[in-house]
């Protein structure tokens, strides 16, 4: 099973653009939009065994400008349908 998750990223004020650039370089993550200041909408498509919680933990641990990850959607994609 693969994982598809939508989530909102909250950053320190003004940090959204920098965080977006960084997120976009990570495998499986696409930034879909933002408010231009402190919030981003993103999607993560992970392979087998991917975990939204692990991703959130890694992102929060690696970027001090990041204040929170708020998932809005978590779906499992069956492998045979991909």
């Amino acid at each position, binding site marked *: 099973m*693969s994982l598809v998750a939508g989530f909102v990223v909250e950053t320190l004020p003004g940090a959204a653009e920098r965080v977006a650039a960084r997120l976009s370089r990570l495998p499986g993550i696409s930034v879909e939009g933002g408010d231009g200041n402190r919030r981003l909408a993103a999607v993560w*498509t992970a392979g087998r065994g991917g975990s939204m*919680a692990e991703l959130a933990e890694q992102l929060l641990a690696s970027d001090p400008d990041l204040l929170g990850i708020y998932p809005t959607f978590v779906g499992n994609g069956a492998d045979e*349908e991909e």
Partner: protein
Amino acid sequence: MKVTRRDFLRTSAAASALAALGSPCRALAEATGPVTWTKSVCRYCGTGCGLYVGVKNGKVTAVQGDGDNHNAGFLCLKGLLLPEIMAAPDRHLHPLVRRNGKLVRVSWEEAMGLVASRFKEAAEKFGPDAVGFYGSGQALTEESYVANKLFRAGLRTNNVDGNPRLCMASAAAGYLSTYGKDEPMGCYEDIDHADVFLIVGANMAEAHPVLFRRVARRREQGKGVKVIVLDPRRTPTSRIADLHLSFTPGTDLAILNAMAHVLLAEGMADEEFVRAHVAFGEGTEANKSLDDYRKLLADYAPARAAEIAGCRAEDIVTAARWFGEQGRAAMSMWTQGLNQRTRGVWANNLVHNLHLLTGKIGLPGSTPFSLTGQPNACGGVRDGGALAHLLPYGRLVANEKHREEMERLWGVPAGTLAPKPGLAAVDLFRSLEEGKLKCLYVMCTNPGQSLPNVDRYRKAMAGDGSFLVVSEAFHPTRTSELADVVLPAALWAEKEGVYGCAERRYQLLQKAVEPPGEARPDFDILCELAGRLGHGKLIPFKTPEEAWNEILRVAKGTPYDFSGMTRERLRQAHGLLWPLPAAGHPGTRRRYVRGEDPLVPAAHPQRIQFYGRPGARAVVWLRPQKSPEEVPDAVYPLYLTTGRVIEHWHTGTMTRNCRELRHARAEATAEMHPQDAARLGVEGGDPVRITSRRGQETFRVSLAEGGRPGVVFVHMHDDRRLCNRITIDAVDPVSRQPEYKICAVKVEKA
């Protein structure tokens, strides 16, 4: 064009995230197809986030945040993944009874017959106090109420306690001693008005993420908003801190006294407020003066406090100045870092002192606000009086008039309610150990993992002389594995009842689906047990709504009065805050405040009335620094502190059932400062054994760069690596809450 399932999911995920920029967590409804939505409340922490439960083909398939509730539609990952716990493989589906050492499946008839006969026999043979009930801040209000009434007025014992004793008893006793009444006077909305946040002993970013988000938003939107975090550890909460004040565990009483010292020395006290609304006290008597207080605080000049606490004096001064600056609203928030201490009540008193000295209380953005760990610890257990020393809605066991009142309300003969308070959590399990308590009914909680010094009490629970009944939605747990009877309980959306969260907000959880297997709501199980014990007249309820209607009558006329919260109104509302004494009343955002609190007369000459205390004066208590029960020494040279992580909750019985969360920090690690690890010769991932005077456990090391040397942190959620083998079961002498947060340990290579 072929649209694969992954394409569909990806589009749905993007749509939901983009929609969330305007209204978070709402888009799931559209993304998951036709479902019915039932209004409810999150099952996890004490924030009480409103949500809707999505049901498709009789199964819970989704949740979405309630945009009309205080959480504005936001949920944390745990809340969003609630559907996964409902059909977990370890859902407990059938009654079990222990035979020849093994738990075997039996009928409800056999299980309930056995429970009733054993409790009846023990009470008759050894007296009423040979039986007890250990409940939960996760049970519904109606469930806790029925258990409370059955055990006190039916079985005639006050041995009714619960896990809120482990997490918030010190907060309750702090409010009670300072203001005369329990529960916060402020509300979540105060976050939107605060100019200064004093977050003490609370890791909101992980334990209360939705409230933390609201604090972070206020910090960025308000003018010059400051966030002060007092915590030995550098947690994710400190990311937004303007000042993170780290200190030696157990020395925050000195820091809080030093802040009061600065407030008085620099003229930041509101003398008019103090004259009108404040008394001073020591011990349990309000018989001291402001001068006496000044004398005590003379010992807590910032330099002296900094020496005690291992922090910088200028940081204490800065914190005090920010807190005390005139015209700026100050909100304090705390949880287990203050509460789980042998001087937890004192620590709570000292936070209240700062508000009372400055008059920063009862105004928008100015309030002392204790955060809560469980969804119904406040509503069902604290307010409902399901703790050993309490009776419902502010009444006390030790108060003869209160007992008489409850006897009248419950329609039982005078003298039915025993005058002696029952045994508080740890004492209850010690009584089991001593063989005095013969039968214990545990509902919706997991003491076999969560009690401090847990191996001691696991032996007692498993002992031949005790009869342990566990009503649980999951099996096995570290408690149900020890039980003589395990009853399958319905979970969350499978039943109906009320939750009351940290801000006095009561909300109705409506039933959305049927329980699986033979599981039943605890309400039904307790009502049946009452009948089997011969107390059917005492517990005549057919539905939780019938019990709720009685609860409204029991609360009427008390300082908790929420008699206007009819079932129908709760169904319609997105949470209601008490006092709410009439059907048309809007609820009370700020207690004790004229024009808001219906218990303060409209003609009261001042803006505030602390009606819970004699003379309507809240008390500034004189409390010196007091060390924790155990401090490091040559043999046990490090501090151990325990706590939470964002992905998991309590003993993990629910969150480990979410695939997402199971892979994220489910394993407890020994979080150490790199200096301590280097001294020991270990690196991240290496196994270490942590040993205290009580027990030991093995963990892998994780390194925390921002941590404090000399402090090891382990989270409490792992059911295989039990941090509570190590923790201390010393308790606060007033609140009887254990000191989970501090004990002395040694760490060795394993």
